[in-house]
């Protein structure tokens, strides 16, 4: 149900652009107004969400330690899995963000009959996740050549390496392929692993379909419909320089691509996609395990009702004296 709804939603969105551009000649709407609005919503949305997190303090230092603490000098501590200083935290976070360290630990447990548990490695999720995110990043960087004039050498180099296999004309980008394969895997595991299907919401399928849609439309316009890339660049440069122009004759696939990207941008700040920025804020990962070395302050700390020693002694004084336990008041 959630799956079909999400698929349907993406199909409708595609249909909307198609009708709008083809029938309604709304190139300006889809080529200029919506992208601008989407970007604005994205930026404002992301910032305000991050600020909302930032507004809530971190009252306690609740690091999850995944390695030996630093204690006695002759015991080898693990400054990455249980960082005791900022350097360790930075490395831990870098591994987390760039290599998905925690996901790499993933295991799979199987219950055998006698009964017995058997553990196996389960690296596919990690691999697919990593492949997906990295290829996405490469694709983003590659796209910079539409946003810059002259194109920085580095970006050109990137695109060159990415298309190195020179399959087809224009060259097929490896990153695009990897992204589509990995995102398809992520989708299929959601459908075929019963537990994951059980927990999946429309909010999980929708971004997947959206990204698949973005990827497919990109692939189609590059390799099959051969959209005029010079005109695309003209439009994009117009947007970037705030002098929007809408060249005629850019094919529909481009508008579909652009619109789905816009939807993704709008959707982003209101969804789980915020994990992109959220991961940096995670208190179990971004705090050092130096709890007993350095006092952590809770900004909203307040006094609580305690049972004082005096109250305690008042209640038990006679018994304490009888038992020969020293007391404050005789």
């Amino acid at each position, binding site marked *: 149900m959630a799956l079909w709804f999400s698929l349907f939603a993406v199909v409708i969105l595609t249909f909307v652009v198609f009708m709008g551009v083809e029938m309604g000649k709304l190139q300006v709407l889809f080529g200029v107004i919506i992208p601008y609005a989407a970007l604005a919503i994205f930026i404002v949305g992301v910032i305000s969400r991050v600020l909302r997190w930032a507004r809530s303090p971190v009252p306690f230092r609740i690091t999850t330690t995944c390695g030996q603490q630093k204690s006695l000098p002759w015991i080898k501590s693990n400054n990455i899995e249980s960082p005791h200083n900022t350097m360790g935290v930075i490395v831990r976070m870098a591994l987390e963000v760039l290599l998905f360290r925690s996901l790499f630990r993933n295991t799979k447990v199987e219950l055998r009959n006698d009964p017995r548990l058997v553990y196996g490695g389960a690296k596919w999720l990690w691999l697919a996740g990593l492949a997906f995110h990295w290829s996405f990043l490469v694709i983003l960087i590659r796209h910079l050549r539409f946003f810059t004039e002259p194109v920085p050498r580095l970006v050109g180099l990137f695109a060159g390496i990415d298309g190195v296999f020179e399959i087809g004309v224009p060259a097929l980008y490896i990153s695009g392929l990897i992204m589509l394969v990995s995102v398809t895997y992520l989708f299929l595991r959601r459908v075929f692993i019963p537990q994951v299907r059980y927990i999946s919401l429309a909010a999980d399928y929708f971004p997947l379909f959206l990204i698949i849609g973005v990827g497919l439309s990109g692939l189609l316009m590059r390799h099959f419909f051969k959209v005029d890339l010079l005109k695309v660049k003209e439009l994009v440069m117009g947007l970037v320089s705030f002098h929007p122009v809408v060249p005629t004759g850019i094919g529909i696939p481009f508008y579909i691509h652009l619109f789905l990207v816009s939807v993704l941008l709008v959707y982003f700040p209101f969804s789980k996609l915020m994990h992109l920025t959220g991961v940096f804020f995670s208190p179990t990962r971004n705090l050092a395990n130096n709890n007993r070395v350095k006092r952590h302050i809770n900004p909203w700390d307040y006094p609580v009702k305690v049972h004082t*020693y005096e109250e305690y002694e008042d209640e038990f004084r006679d018994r304490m004296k009888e038992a020969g336990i020293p007391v404050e008041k005789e």
Partner: protein
Amino acid sequence: MSSSELPSSSELSNIPEPDEFMRVVHKPPRKGWMDTPVEFKRGTYCFPGKAKNLKILDMPNPREWSPTDEDWKLPENWKEIIREGFKDRLEKYRSFKLFMDICVRCGACADKCHFFIGSGDPKNMPVLRAELLRSVYRNDFTTAGKLLGRLAGARELTEDVIKEWFYYFYQCTECRRCSVFCPYGIDTAEITMMGRELLHLLGLGINWAMEPVANCFRTGNHLGIRPHGFKDTLEFFADDIENVTGIRIDVPLNKKGAEILFVVPSGDYFGDPGTYTCMGYMMLFHELGIDYTWSTYASEGGNFGLFTSHEMIKRLNAKIYTEAKRLGVKWILGGECGHMWRVMHQYMDTMNGPADFLEEPVSPITGTKFENAKSTKMVHIMEFTADLIRHNKLRLDLGRNDDLIVTFHDSCNPARAMGIFEEPRYVIRNVCNHFYDMPEGTIREQTFCCGGGAGLGTDENLDMRLRGGFPRGNAVRYVQEKYGVNRLACMCAIDRATLIPLCDYWAPGVLVTGIHEMVANALIMKGEKERTINLRGEPLPGSKNQSSVVSHRNWRQADRRLETGREGE
């Protein structure tokens, strides 16, 4: 409460044989989880907090009720209370707000939870446990949820949702294993803690947590042992030690001006086998001539406030520093406990510090500065003893532990909230000859819970405990078959209670021990008589005089002795 510290045989006998018990399907049902109402099955939930305990603590809505009742007698404006409480906590805890927002439902945490592995109940997947709260969060606090409702995974707060929360937040031992695997570090324990806090606003808690909390508040310890009872107990241990070693040792109590305040979980002096570990500490300190003191007021290091609310942690923990100040000690040493150390390590200084009236801890024997505890001023006994052994300050006869083939259970809290892995292993290796770790993936940061932490270690919950304990039991069984392991060492008082039925059921023949029990058995004390029995009163391996079993106590006898100073039920 005392009689349920160890499960009665009748409870165990209700549990079918392992192969039948574990006929568990991990495949979720067809029907979506939002359409599957909670069902309170016998053996899988804990009894509710008694009104008298709630009253002692000034907690809301004290009354008698049962989870199986139709009407839970919630306050009239319960929805508003939850909404306000939710909002308040979102504003106070970044962790909570963030964890509500960024889960991608990748499912990596799903089969990491011992309760899911052992029960197959999909709502015991950490991600779904969190979704129980998240669904309400989306409904009440997010745009998408307000607009799209169920499509966005939002659902309205109803009494059935509250019942579900109660059931599943008390089927989480806050062990944090899931958080090790989550790519964003989402800690479902943190979410469970928030969930429990919200439930408490409506007067919904479990008695196995609330009774200890109420006791602890008043008498200083979970078991309600009063000062004279505490003294009797320790004296009684001194008798036993004398029987074994021929040495009479002192029990310093509430002694002003001592160098060190020593704090243990009350389980250590209440029930076997914790008692042997307690004797172990006493023998160690006596042998080294350490100037320390026990406190009857701070007679509990454990803190079931951790399983109740952040405020309750602080209320119960406050006595540690105030007592250290009153007695004028220099620093604090803490015994073998699990959740106690989560509190001491991650909360105490923030909540009740700064402990600027104390000094940075230095070992009086080796001169080692415990730099890692220089702000909190509290040292873990395992750090302390490892340092002693490293500096050759203990004379140890490992042969006395030769009948033990030992494995070690990393307790969740010291493992995932402190990262204390090597110290206990170092000590164990130096006091016994046969030590084998359980397999990778079941130890250290990936250790499995005993199934009875976070206040769930009660008998009426035995079915669920044994299910949750299955991954641990399975790993113990593995080293038992492979290396002949017969002793499961742990440094946690809850473990020393819950691992016993766990082993009886999953790995019969394996007994449970604290680490300082092994230390003390190996410790050669100045002026001791030739030892023929260990602290349990069993003959030492190779001992000539096998018949000299003098003081074999079982825990029920200990229990009777404690009656003198414990609150009646």
